[in-house]
């Protein structure tokens, strides 16, 4: 039988071991087995006694001496690798216990972490010598072991060991060198912890709290938790330590295999003198930390209604509503000096339109809420289809104001006698539009009011939304209720045409803005479809105008217009299926970190102040705040001086993490700003910012 390379090597190793035995000539070396050697690891079986007595309990150990930078593994090896295993062919009556795992270190290699040991380690096991072992005889332990050593690459190795221990009347210590190796491993043996340890899990974070005597900032310089089993923590994630008198907390990222319930692991603590010790922890589940599960406190109904009403009123001043108010203003100008009753009715119909829109939005929100999804105020702007449709609508209204075509007339197929009613329908429609466009501009008050309303019973929500609608509608309702004001408006005349044409431009501007929002949301493909739609809208408007202005009616402009409308409908179908682009880059800036709940928790555990800015491309108030306040040199400098981490969340597209964050504050809309001073709870900033507001709050 040919001698295989493997066997040759093995016998060479045997020879090497024998050589060692002879050359050192000490009896103490009997406390070590043959040695298995590779360029990476020198492995043997050792005993803390060179000679043993009958009935003695002693420790033997698998000893690994590793080349620099190579490591071997703990019982939970972390992300890669595997712990050593050893099986004994025990002599009669002798028993060998399990490995008493020494406390490990953590090695981070790229995106993975390993738990294990470098340089030298002994994996101790208890050996019980049989009671009836005869002095003068030998106790022979044969073992087969395998282990993995890794640097960047992992090499599995294995070996068979034979350890011969003479049985004598009295035990004899192993050599100092071997006893020293045991002592080094002993220094790593975990101690039972005298402390109470709890673990609480958030959605993605894990907080360990260890409480008891002896924990103090002076005695704990650093700490690291090693769970006994895989997947409890994200092994590679940083563990942020906070030490107070009698208590330490570690905040880290939850592992993929985490399940609620008790668990165990080791806490490695480096004390003030740089000494590292390992403590065995039994973790019991603590109070849940997820604030998101807590319902926001509900304001009394009258207060909610008041805030909502004021919020609605203030919406009239928001940039989002301006273009719509322009339409209304044009309509009112048209009525100036007209029939008092018509003016009054126009105000009423506008109000009804506003209320109808608010009710529809409220019902939609409630329906989605009932379906279990988290949505927020202004959610409709998270749909690319909606944004594109609004953009087209704005162009269509603009073209109407520019006089390209007229609303009404034969296209609607309605008779002359209905003209009056059409005016009211127009008012109603204007009210609807005002609400739909205004929602992303969540004004002060609205956030809290809507937040409370959405966790309240449905009727409360409806009341709140209705009062908000009344607030928004109030200025024009006023005109109707007090016709004396309307009477003071200028007489109709040529100026009206000019005003109407001028009012087209806010519409075009809004269309342009919506187009920009869409580009953030649906990317180039979405933009392409929206632009095609704009051209079609222009074409249809022109065709309608052509038809309206012709004395002799022909069929083809109508047919072509219908084809154009069909084209737009087709685009809508395509856009409906469009997938949102993952990140809206434009709302991110260089110095801001993207929002992540776990990152926030970690930074806070680290004791860093954090400023959180929730924004969206469709939120004009957010963008204004950014321009006028947050990105100014003064504010940026204040943040830098205070060491504040600036975190930005982008809600342009749906993001459940941000929705959950807002809801934890009882909010449902943007803008939203929260400042977390170091070691303290958050301070919520008002939605309309000034430099002074921000710098003052940062000084806290």
């Amino acid at each position: 039988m040919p001698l295989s390379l493997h066997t040759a090597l093995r016998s060479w190793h045997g020879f090497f071991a024998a050589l060692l035995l002879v050359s050192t000539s000490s009896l103490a070396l009997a406390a070590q087995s043959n040695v298995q050697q590779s360029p990476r690891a020198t492995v043997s079986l050792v005993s803390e006694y060179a000679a043993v007595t009958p009935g003695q309990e002693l420790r033997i150990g698998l000893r690994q001496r590793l080349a620099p930078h190579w490591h071997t593994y703990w019982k939970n090896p972390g992300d890669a690798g595997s712990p050593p295993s050893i099986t004994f062919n025990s002599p009669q009556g002798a028993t060998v216990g399990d490995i008493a795992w020494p406390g490990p270190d953590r090695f981070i290699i790229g995106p993975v972490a390993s738990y294990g040991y470098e340089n030298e380690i002994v994996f101790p096991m208890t050996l019980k010598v049989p009671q009836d072992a005869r002095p003068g005889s030998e106790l022979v332990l044969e073992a087969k072991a395998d282990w993995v050593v890794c640097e960047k690459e992992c090499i599995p190795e294995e070996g068979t060991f034979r350890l011969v221990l003479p049985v004598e009347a009295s035990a004899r210590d192993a050599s100092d060198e071997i006893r020293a190796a045991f002592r080094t491993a002993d220094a790593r043996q975990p101690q039972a912890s005298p402390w109470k340890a709890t673990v609480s899990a958030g959605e993605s974070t894990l907080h360990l709290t260890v409480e008891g005597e002896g924990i103090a900032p002076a005695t704990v310089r650093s700490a690291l938790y090693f769970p006994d089993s895989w997947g409890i923590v994200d092994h590679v994630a940083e563990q942020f330590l906070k030490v107070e008198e009698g208590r330490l907390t570690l905040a880290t990222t939850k592992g993929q295999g985490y399940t609620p319930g008790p668990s165990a692991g080791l806490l490695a603590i480096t004390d003030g003198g740089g000494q590292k010790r390992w403590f065995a922890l039994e973790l019991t589940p603590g109070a849940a930390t997820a604030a998101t599960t807590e319902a926001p406190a509900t304001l009394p109904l009258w207060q909610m209604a008041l805030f909502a009403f004021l919020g609605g009123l203030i919406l009239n001043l928001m940039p989002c509503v301006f273009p719509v108010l322009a339409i209304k203003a044009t309509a009112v100008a048209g009525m100036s000096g007209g029939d008092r009753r018509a003016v009054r009715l126009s105000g009423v119909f506008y109000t009804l339109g506003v209320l109808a829109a608010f009710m529809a939005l409220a019902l939609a929100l409630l329906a989605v809420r009932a379906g279990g999804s988290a949505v927020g105020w202004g959610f409709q702007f998270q749909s690319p289809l909606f944004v594109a449709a609004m953009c087209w609508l704005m162009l269509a209204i603009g073209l109407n104001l520019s006089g390209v075509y007229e609303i009404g007339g034969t296209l609607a197929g309605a008779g002359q006698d209905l003209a009056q009613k059409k005016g009211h329908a127009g008012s109603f429609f204007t009210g609807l539009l005002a609400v739909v466009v205004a929602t992303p501009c969540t004004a002060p008050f609205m956030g809290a009011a809507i937040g409370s309303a959405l966790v309240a019973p449905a009727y409360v929500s409806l009341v709140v939304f209705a009062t908000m609608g009344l607030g928004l509608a109030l200025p024009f309702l006023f005109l109707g209720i007090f016709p004396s004001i309307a009477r003071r408006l200028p007489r109709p005349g040529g100026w009206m045409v000019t005003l109407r044409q001028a009012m087209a431009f806010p519409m075009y501007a809004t269309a342009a803005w919506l187009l920009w929002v869409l580009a953030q949301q649906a990317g180039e493909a979405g933009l392409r479809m929206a632009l095609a739609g704009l051209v079609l809208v222009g074409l249809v408007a022109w065709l309608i105008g052509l038809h309206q202005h012709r004395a002799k009616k022909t069929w083809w402009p109508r047919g072509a217009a219908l084809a154009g409308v069909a084209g737009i409908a087709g685009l809508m179908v395509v856009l409906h299926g469009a997938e949102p682009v993952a990140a809206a880059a434009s709302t991110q800036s260089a110095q801001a970190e993207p929002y992540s709940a776990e990152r926030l928790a970690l930074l806070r555990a680290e004791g860093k102040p954090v400023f959180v800015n929730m924004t969206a491309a469709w939120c004009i108030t957010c963008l204004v705040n950014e321009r006028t306040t947050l990105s100014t040199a003064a504010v940026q400098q204040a943040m830098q001086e205070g060491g504040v981490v600036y975190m930005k969340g982008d809600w342009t597209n749906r993001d459940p993490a941000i929705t959950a964050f807002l809801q934890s504050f009882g909010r449902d809309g943007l803008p939203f700003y929260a400042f977390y001073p170091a070691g303290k709870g958050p301070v919520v900033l008002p939605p309309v910012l000034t430099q002074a507001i921000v710098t003052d709050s940062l000084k806290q």
Partner: protein
Amino acid sequence: MNGTSRRAMLRTTASAAALAAAGFLVAAPALAAPVIGQPAPAFTAVDSKGKQHSLSDFKGKTVVLEWTNHDCPYVKKHYQANIPALQKQARDAGVVWLSVISSAPGEQGHVDGKKADELTASRNAAPTAVLLDPQGTVGKAYDARTTPHMYVIDAKGVLRYAGGIDSIASAKLEDIEKASPLFKTAMEAVVKGENVAQATTRPYGCNVKYKS
């Protein structure tokens, strides 16, 4: 009105702040790693033949992702018998099997398309395609940590399994028989439209040799 509104605003702010202070540790879902039961991260990568594949190309089919590095002893163990057999089983069941190589240039396991095809032939492997991911983009999107690291995505694009190929973390061939075949069980369940009992398990093997 301005005074009133300011006071009201302050009161709102104060109550919101009190709320937030009550729930001291705010946590919300924002996982970097893909989540079981959620849509699997989208990706586009070029295979060993230069053909581009996107996850969305395979809608309607079960997709297996296997991270691999031919020089890793754990991978070697499973390519000796286990993985080629699993690939054939997958192919017969209409499952798309994508082997992904995320080793960066200069790192262990990095190969070009030609070498990848040679490996496929020499190991009797039968993946649908071998994706080359030297930048580690796909690997990081899936938080792939070891070779092998296995993922099963169902016909709707939802991630159903992430973890180890089996239950015994060793590089020894004889352990394949003894181990419980976690990945195989998961793949079979997904093909049948059944629930995966153990959807997250410990992946084991060598660490993925990403670009550092």
